[in-house]
């Protein structure tokens, strides 16, 4: 892994309050805070696809462009990579931004013609048609809805540490999938990719004792069955990796239980401990 590429961490420690101006109104922010976060907090809409609080800004979707006013000149920058500082002045809807945003939305409408999310978001900014040729995707595992924001890849690699999926090819040929477009052995089946996907492009389903990740070359991951109630509750590999982070005595107690039964068992244990009973026969 690369070391030290963590702009947020570096900017973090001194949380000095500053005032930034967005569309002519003043707002409080922490120095170094991501401008897109500030805007979201104060409910100023800035469209975006590739930003996720827990990951470094990625700067790929280009939708979050704002105009930064500096010495009377306005320069475009992406809000996700902008850091709040005293006197920062930005405009979210300059004529240039409207012009470029329209084209970007049209490009997205052509790239992911099946995505309802893209359609809705574009419509909110007045873009309902595209003058560009739509992609015809026959049998696209992401259902013609992927806009290559990279969030699934980054969550899978950087947060889950599974590294099951990645980008394949480059330029307009880029897709996301498993290597050799074959079922992955590294996939935990955690579904974080599907949860993070802004366009709901990732398709998966739990069927029988398995989770099937349709979008990822039909990767199948076995689910654990609860030893107490018999329900399938989580991908086995994921359960193992979660349990490995828990202290051994407790781990032995919880192994094989679904979250509901776990809670019951823990509650029982606490009651018994409080009343001085013997937990052994739980």
């Amino acid at each position, binding site marked *: 892994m690369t070391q030290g590429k963590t*702009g947020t961490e570096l900017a973090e420690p001194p949380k000095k309050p500053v005032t930034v101006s967005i569309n002519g109104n003043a707002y409080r922010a922490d120095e170094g805070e991501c401008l897109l976060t500030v805007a979201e907090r104060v409910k100023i809409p800035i469209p975006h696809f590739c930003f996720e609080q827990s990951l470094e800004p990625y700067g790929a979707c*280009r939708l979050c462009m704002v105009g930064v006013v500096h010495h009377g000149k306005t320069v475009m920058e992406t809000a996700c990579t902008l850091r709040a500082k005293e006197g920062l002045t930005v405009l979210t809807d300059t004529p240039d931004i409207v012009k470029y945003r329209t*084209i970007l939305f049209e*490009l997205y409408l052509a790239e992911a013609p099946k995505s309802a999310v893209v359609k809705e978001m574009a419509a909110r900014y007045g873009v309902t048609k595209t*003058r560009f040729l739509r992609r015809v995707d026959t049998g696209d595992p992401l259902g013609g809805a992927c806009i290559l924001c990279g969030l699934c890849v980054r969550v899978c690699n950087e947060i889950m540490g599974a590294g099951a999926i990645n980008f394949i090819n*480059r330029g*307009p040929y880029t897709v996301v999938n498993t290597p050799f477009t074959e079922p992955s052995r590294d996939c935990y089946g955690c579904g974080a990719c599907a949860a993070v996907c802004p366009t709901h492009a990732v398709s998966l389903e739990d069927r029988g004792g398995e989770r099937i990740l349709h979008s990822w070359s039909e990767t199948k991951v076995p689910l654990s069955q609860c030893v107490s109630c018999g329900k399938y509750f989580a991908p086995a590999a994921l359960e193992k990796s979660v349990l490995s982070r828990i202290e051994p005595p407790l781990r032995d107690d919880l192994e094989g239980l679904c979250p509901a039964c776990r809670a019951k068992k823990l509650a029982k244990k606490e009651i018994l401990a409080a009343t001085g009973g013997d937990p052994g026969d739980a």
Partner: protein
Amino acid sequence: MTGVFDRAAGEVAGQKKILPGKPRIAVGLATCGIAVGGEKVYERLQEIIKKTGVDISLAKTGCIGYCREEPLVNITIPGKPLVILHKVTEEDAEGIVEAVKKGTVPYKKALCRVPSWDHVTGTVITYGNGFDEIPLYADIPFFKHQKKVILRNAGFINPEDIDEYLAVGGYAAAEQALTRMDSETIISEVEKSGLRGRGGAGFPTGMKWRITRDAPGAAKYIICNADEGDPGAYMNRNEMESDPHMLIEGMIIGAYAIGAKEGLIYIRAEYPLAIRRLVHAIGEARALGLLGKDIIGAGFDFDIRIATGAGAFVCGESTALVASIEGRTGRPHPRPPRLTDPGGGLWGIPSDLNNVETWCNIPVIIRNGSGWYAKIGAEKNAGTKVFSLVGKVDRVGLVEVPLGTSLNTIVCDIGNGGAQGKKVKAVQTGGPSGGCIPVRLFDTPVNYESLNAVGSIMGSGGIVVMDEDTDMVDIARYFINFATGESCGKCVPCREGLRHTLILLNRLIARKGTAKDLETLALLADTIKNTSLCGLGQSAPNPVLTTLAYFREEYDALVKP
């Protein structure tokens, strides 16, 4: 390890090789010379010399850059001028050896003579006089308007022999810097020289060095960008193949000034010969104590590694380049952090990235002084620049001129206009990131600002000439097709925008386009330029924008009425 570096000893040994006191035949063997049979000429000469047992020293040199006349062979007969033979074939080998045996040269093959050569860093090699019927180097139109500073040794010395580099003043600058100058003096010399980055954007080199040196943390990297991704540009290849030690010397000085212990050359895989010569040169430099521990006895440790690319134009971009070296795909990330920032460089360490030719400028600046250097070139554009003049031009080749020289001088005086007597119509500078400049703007001086003003860029120095037969819309399509294939695919304007630009251009060329398509084309190009994440997307529309501006009639002619 050998003892303390002894420049003088190497210098003497090298001079004996350049002027061996007996005839020397040197064959130009850079990739270009090899591609047109130079190696066969060399082998044939070797065979004949061995068979006949004549006392002739046979050597390899790099390339003097007059590509049209390759293969080139230099002959040095003691006391006589060095004679450059051109368009030499295997069949000529016999005749050459015969002539040399008699103390002369095959006149019919002679291009020009060089009575003495100024290697700029303080050494002038005097060959001799005679052969008056052969034109002088300085009278050859291709050479007459050039000023050789970076290419001062190219084609004269053997790039695989460090002694020959030492013989022409090599490593004197490194010795001077490491033993008699401190970091501050060196950086301020580079700043005062006015040197700007030769990789495209023209960022002041001294300032970049200073920023890297002053960045937090003791560890620093220096990196040489030898990706030379612009198709049609090959000056960096020739610089590395013909004079690899000049680059290494520049990097040693830079490392010392910036405080880097490790340097890296990121070179494209398409340049196997340049890689071999660099590896060999690095080995030679280590053996003489110029790389490794305690360089030149100055108590400074530094070494150079080579990392190879794998065919991706975007990896010339700084953040993609670092990703590639770290073993990832070359997808750029937003800056800051820049390479010079903590967290932004190689393995997160502040790094200084400079182009091959930028590094090559360093020894001469240190040796001759910033004042000397600053006088070459034009206002805010000091020094010379090497251009590769290719395409439909009569005299193709590598051309080195002071910055500020006009396109006219380069294309018409040096290049002699269009090939086969055709009329020149435009040039493309800066490769896929640059723009097409029409012939009516050929009095534009070639400097960073003027090229930007006409919608193009300096880039790394590729100049591709187009003649009256060239279809400019096809050229725009060519570049967009290239950029689409080279886009990393991270951001939508570049990934999707270029693809649709290509679709629109294809539709126009198929005569199915409308005036509305032309409008969309212009708007799309504008969007890509202004919203893309990295320099690739930001500059990829330039060929479309400039051809639209200067050759609009060719687009209009394709549109259905």
